[in-house]
């Protein structure tokens, strides 16, 4: 078993809580994991990416080779496109549709996604909206993790345990809300598949 994931977003959007939840899940299962992330200058509103690799055997490289990612999970639509060369042709792209517009030349992406969906499996989800509907607008990241979960080779229950581990310190209510968000995202994707 191995799942190679590119996590994409903009500095400050918090893709690291997604990575942390999956990391906790992987650790609980005694899987091997490597996760390379972006710190420093780019975090100031720039493009950030994390390479997350999970396997049942030792992993060598901290970076995913070109064309080998099973999944691009992006919390921002334009950022999901920046790392396409990493994606395996059999891989999936799961992206939030809510754009983070902090540049003046932000492009219209509708045609690009239409064209791309002829080549690869794409799930586009308004995670911000779904998070609001589940009563926790801050849990958009967990909606995204839920939407991506059908493409990750870790059982749903184990990822939920990972989420519980990460949010445990913040109290039961926060854990519940994040798990709800995860489930809502997962249901959305399963309906599309």
């Amino acid at each position, binding site marked *: 078993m191995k799942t190679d994931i590119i996590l994409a977003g903009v500095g400050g959007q918090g893709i690291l809580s997604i990575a942390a939840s999956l990391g906790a899940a992987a650790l609980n299962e005694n899987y*091997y994991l490597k996760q390379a992330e972006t*710190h420093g200058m*780019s975090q*100031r509103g720039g493009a950030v990416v994390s390479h997350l690799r999970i396997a049942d055997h030792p992993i060598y*490289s901290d970076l995913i080779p*070109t064309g080998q990612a099973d999944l691009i999970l992006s919390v921002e639509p*334009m950022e999901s496109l920046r790392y396409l060369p990493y994606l395996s042709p059999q891989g999936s792209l799961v992206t939030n549709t809510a754009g983070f517009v902090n540049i003046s030349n932000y492009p219209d992406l509708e045609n690009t996604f239409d*064209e791309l969906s002829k080549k690869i499996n794409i799930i586009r989800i308004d995670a911000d909206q779904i998070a609001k509907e589940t009563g926790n607008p801050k849990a958009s990241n967990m909606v995204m993790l839920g939407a991506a979960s059908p493409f990750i080779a870790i059982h749903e229950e184990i990822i939920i345990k990972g989420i519980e581990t990460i949010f445990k310190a913040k109290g039961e209510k926060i854990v519940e809300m994040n798990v709800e968000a995860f489930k809502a995202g997962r249901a959305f994707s399963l309906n599309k598949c």
Partner: protein
Amino acid sequence: MQRNLLLGVEAIGQAAIDAGISGVYAYPGTPSTEITEYIQNNRLARERNIHREWSANEKTALEAALGMSYAGKRTMACMKHVGLNVAADVFMNMAITGINGGLVVAVADDPSQHSSQNEQDSRFYGKFAMIPVFEPSNQQEAYDMTYEAFAFSEKAGLPVMMRIPTRLAHSRSGVVQKMVQTENPLKMPENLMQFMLLPVYGRKYYQNLLDKQDWLAELSEESAYNQYFEGKEKSLGIVCCGITYNYLMENYPNGNCPYPVVKIAHYPVPQKLLQKLENECDELLVVEEGYPLVEELLTDFFGKGTKVSGRLDGTLPRRGELNPDHLAKALGRELEEPLQIPDTLVGRPPSLCAGCGHQDTYEALNEVIAEVGNGRVFSDIGCYTLGALPPYNTINTCVDMGASITMAKGAADAGLSPVFAVIGDSTFTHSGITGLLDCVVEKSNVNILIVDNETVAMTGGQDSSAKGRIEKICEGVGVAPEHIRLFVPLKKNHDEIVKIIREEIAYNGVSVIIGRRECVQRIAKMKRLHKKEAAKNGQ
């Protein structure tokens, strides 16, 4: 065995605690910052009250570490690669004095310059100083080698450098920890003149360092971290340094690399292992993150020997960090055509945060620059460096910490007027004060803007040594009090800021204009911390 998910930098921090350090000394710098932050937040480090405050700069940090070593305790200094330039004086000389308590210098290099002015390779400093350098290939080795480095330092009587690149610094993996050691007792050096480098002593100690070199080479030869992996295909022998071993093996997921491989993680380079590889193989490929240090060593100057390829002959890129694709290509593998990035995609460069005070300062400064002409704003390193990018395009230089003030001075000496220096609060106390003194002594005609956000912002909001001290420092250095001006960088104060800058341009001498408003990220960070503390106390 319990595994904890740790970044490479965190593994180094944990290992240093477990090896019984009594202090860490550092100035923040990506990608090294989190070594010290990890120690600051660690429970055992707090219980033991290990020294863990930030230093004013890398030089003061490394000197303090040497003082702690003098007193017999184990200690670590941490910095980014260019920080070692700042600390180079003590670094070179501490190799000659040697150490008392184990001393590790953890240096994080930044190949590809993710957050740096250059991608200099710290291994050259290690070789220059003639001290052992450890270059782990993964998080577990980062832990194990740091843990062992303190005892090794004491055995060798020398400081040890831990060198890691960004990709290992900021990548997480499961790490198994070792037993926690007790701290060293206070213990004076046996020779009370050990740290005395008057030439009469210095010559002797330098000879001692030279005499140790063969022994250090033998220790490298025996190191468990320098390994020879047999391979049946002798047409090529591969030398991999540190993390690059993973990029090679990623191409052989079952571990079945057909070529003989020497993995180097402990310097000086293991000569016998390399000799064996050269004897067995037709050609050599050298793979290293950073500059071609080993490749230059192995490349035959007169072209009479074994062919060596790597970064110098174009087999691997000369610049930038490596990855598994580079190795695949160097090994002659055909890669499938990857998916293309659509043309619609645009760049998203880093930018000043919404609400950042630097924006208001640059808006005002730009208005004045429109009157006096472009090309006269000297700056250096911090969040404010983003003022070089649109929409501001205000600053013209960024070379090294503190160079804003001194370059402005040199340009003023040359006759350029008016000139501006833009420097942050923490950069000012890191390397700006001595330059300001030069200006004061010579009554240079400079306008120094200290953009004070009361924190080390770019690296994540660490405490700034400058906080609450800037005016007093400037007065103490000798700036005329009436030319130390203060403003609050807010939109509503725009006209006032412009007016202050215009008034100070009119003054022929040293002006310091301080714009003070706390970093918006720091405010948010402190709120989060207080909330967390409150929740903890509530339980």
